[in-house]
């Protein structure tokens, strides 16, 4: 088991290197560079001065030198300077990463809390009225665009009833570390979490429902019933155990979202997270921030896939490689 995990992690290293190379090349291929970004088109700077600055900053070095320097710095936590915000990218990311993580974790937990019971009910009693209701809800949530739904939720519960704040991640008057601060954070989380979670459940419900319907007909379920064990245990020990496998495996991928965040939700709720920063940075051409964010979310996908594999190997004996 341990060797499997070690091996799986070793595969990650070339994947990450390749990812970083692609991002570096793409970033270099974009018009403009750090110097043109820093001077912001200032006409007082002459072409010779520009060249001099470029030389000093190492921008005239061969690409591989630049790449290894960038990678070396990145690994050590130096992701460069944001042209727009005029502060290190790491500082910019620090607070937002926490916010995004919190929001995504809450969304993930709430959506599983809704989706797993509903998926089980729909699958176990499929074609019952409960199943039809749940499938109806599924179609609704698949068909509804996230930005429309989120806006509607914001309008109704934030603006009309005024139950929840319209934006931000915490009340500015709340003091860090105090009880009010925690309550305020949670209060700010409610709407973005719910609107994200309610729509995110559809895939999980549908997947789980279909898998249960399929697994119900498998021969080993007949074997279990022939053993004369209670129907409840046929479900928990045999059907659900098998049907939750793909859900468990998918969890690793979902963790990716914890880091990359939701662009729509964060933008609509003006929630200061990575998704919102990403949209802002693209519109202001803040390339260092964009490439840092792309690198982080790319790495998150790779790590998430690895987690999926590891989770699957824990729950499914057939995957285990000695």
């Amino acid at each position, binding site marked *: 088991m341990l060797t499997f995990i070690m091996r799986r992690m070793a595969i990650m290293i070339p994947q990450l290197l390749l990812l970083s190379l692609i991002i570096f090349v793409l970033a270099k291929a974009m018009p403009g560079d750090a110097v043109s970004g820093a001077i912001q088109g200032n006409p007082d700077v002459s072409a010779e001065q520009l060249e001099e600055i470029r030389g000093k900053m190492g921008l005239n070095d061969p690409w591989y030198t630049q790449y290894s320097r960038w990678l070396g710095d990145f690994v050590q936590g130096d992701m460069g300077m944001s042209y727009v915000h005029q502060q290190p990218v790491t500082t910019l990311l620090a607070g937002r990463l926490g916010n995004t993580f919190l929001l995504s974790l809450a969304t993930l937990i709430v959506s599983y809390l809704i989706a797993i019971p509903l998926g089980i009910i729909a699958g176990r009693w499929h074609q019952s009225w409960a199943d039809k209701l749940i499938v109806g809800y599924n179609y609704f949530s698949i068909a509804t665009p996230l930005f429309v739904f989120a806006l509607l939720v914001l309008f109704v519960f934030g603006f009309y009833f005024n139950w929840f704040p319209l934006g931000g991640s915490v009340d500015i008057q709340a003091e860090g570390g105090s009880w009010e601060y925690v309550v305020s954070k949670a209060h700010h989380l409610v709407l973005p979490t719910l609107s994200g979670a309610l729509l995110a459940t559809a895939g999980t419900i549908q997947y789980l429902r279909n898998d249960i319907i399929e697994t119900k007909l498998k021969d080993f379920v007949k074997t279990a*019933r022939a053993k*004369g*064990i209670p129907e409840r245990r046929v479900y928990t020990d*045999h059907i659900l155990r*098998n049907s939750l496998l793909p859900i468990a495996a998918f969890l690793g991928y979902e963790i990716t979202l914890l880091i990359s965040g939701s662009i729509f939700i964060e933008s609509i709720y003006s929630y200061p997270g990575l998704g919102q920063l990403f949209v802002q940075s693209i519109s202001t051409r803040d390339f260092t921030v964009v490439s840092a964010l792309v690198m982080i979310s790319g790495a998150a996908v790779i790590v998430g896939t690895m987690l999926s594999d590891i989770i699957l190997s824990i729950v499914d004996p*057939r995957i285990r490689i000695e």
Partner: protein
Amino acid sequence: MGKALLEIENLQTSFRIKGTDYAAVDDVSLCIHEDEVLAIVGESGCGKSALALSIIGLHEPRVTDLRGAIRFEGENLLELSRKKLNEIRGKEIGMVFQDPMTALNPLLTIGSQIEEPMKYHMDLSRIARKERALDLLRRVGIRDEALVHARYPHELSGGMRQRVVIAIALACNPRLLIADEPTTALDVTIQAQIMELLKTLQSEMQSGILLITHDLGVVAETADRVAVMYAGQIVELAEVDDIFARPLHPYTRSLFQSNPAKMPRKGRLHVIQGRVPNLENLKREGCRFADRVPWVPKTEHARSPVLQEVKRGHFVRCTCYKNFHFNTGRSGEKDVATS
């Protein structure tokens, strides 16, 4: 022969297809005695498995209609609540399934799957259950039982898995074992081993076995009595020696005729014309086999064929057996049953 263990009375198992009920098992009455092997033979689609699954209550209740009675030691299984039925299946009745590749839960170890029914039916400690599981594995012919106990199904071969499936069926010392084509999914050498094993176990356990198969060799070697099923009905029922010595019903004779082992050196293997009608197209009046022996004049068939005892313990349906002969118009076919 011991006393009756399982009595099936006028069982009718119907499946609902597009709103209409079609009987897959039609008015079947059978009796299985203690320490008896009763074989049910017939082509695919004759209702053999539907019969077996009716006994153990594995049909989807929403689309299945069960009529008649299945009495196990006097208790009608069809009238029992699920809870009561669960006290009998797995404990008093064990089931061996057809395909060992799919009959085991891929996520549980062999040991836990064998011990599972014991948890619900036997008052044994965890250690005692493991002891028993190891003992069962030994009894079904697995030598390194401790190793296999901790293995997962995908780590075992098909033959080994079928042994495990048998061990599960035997976990709580059942009085009746239902084996639904236990060797169909296995290759020939393993088939012989598994049948040998079932025979040995049966003589050890003194329990009844309902053996469903279409392998006539297996029937001749293992069964005490044989029921031949066609289109949901029993067309012939007799002691094994009787039926092999003097098969009566045209369907039984056709089946025997189609056995390659009995084929003359030269000439072609007998093939029964046509196919088993599917549930929706099955004609329910008259002799159901008539369509597949079209050369037999209509007057030979009874209008409403019933199972008649023609000799002590030898039952046959319809009257068309009396003057039946194979259609020898085609080259080289000889009636092996009468020659």
